[in-house]
């Protein structure tokens, strides 16, 4: 099992009710962790419309997570 920290922003933070959360999971990808969070919190926007960063670098959903990683889940962006 690995322990990672998920950080939530904007709408996701409101739906989760917290800025961050610890997850202990079997080794998985960023996308697989997102799917767990999406199911738990009923996120309505799929991964295709969202972005993810791992340890402060934008990443692919296929990026493998390691113990101690921080994963940032970004809902659809709306700058400008």
């Amino acid at each position, binding site marked *: 099992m690995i322990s990672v920290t998920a950080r939530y922003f904007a709408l996701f933070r409101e739906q989760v009710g917290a800025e961050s959360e610890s997850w202990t999971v079997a080794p998985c990808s960023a996308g697989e962790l997102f799917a767990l969070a999406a199911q738990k919190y009923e996120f309505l926007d799929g991964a295709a419309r969202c972005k993810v960063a791992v340890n402060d670098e934008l990443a692919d959903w296929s990026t493998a997570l390691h113990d101690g990683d921080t994963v940032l889940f970004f809902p659809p*962006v709306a700058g400008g």
Partner: protein
Amino acid sequence: MFQIAAAPIDVVALKADLENPAAGACVCFEGWVRDLNDGAAVSALDYEAYEPLAVKEGEQVLAEARSRFDLIDAVCQHRVGQLQLGDCAVWVGVTAAHRDAAFAACRFIIDEIKARLPIWKKEHYQDGDSGWVNCAKPIKPADAEAGAAS
């Protein structure tokens, strides 16, 4: 230079910083808070950014603009915090020897900023409702009950 700004953008100062005798063209873009979005009357906007990555990605966009277009300089500032109608949410300024590059680069920069940076906006509406732009709207418990009853 890309910056996230918590205070009103000083457009006069930003433009003054771009002054350069080699520049034949200066093209600036200001994004303003608008009163209507998708038919809903907006009263205010909250902008939120994940600043470390917004700045990193913003600098990357400016670097790409400088490499794609023949520029002298490119600057962008994006607000965070609560903004009122008419406030400037984002400022892009570009200088070049000639206008073709300046116009094209300015357009490129604002388009990329909007597509790529971890920045979000929550609209507050005149009717008291609010919603995150571009995000699917969660069904509120009151709406769900109304749906079930009918």
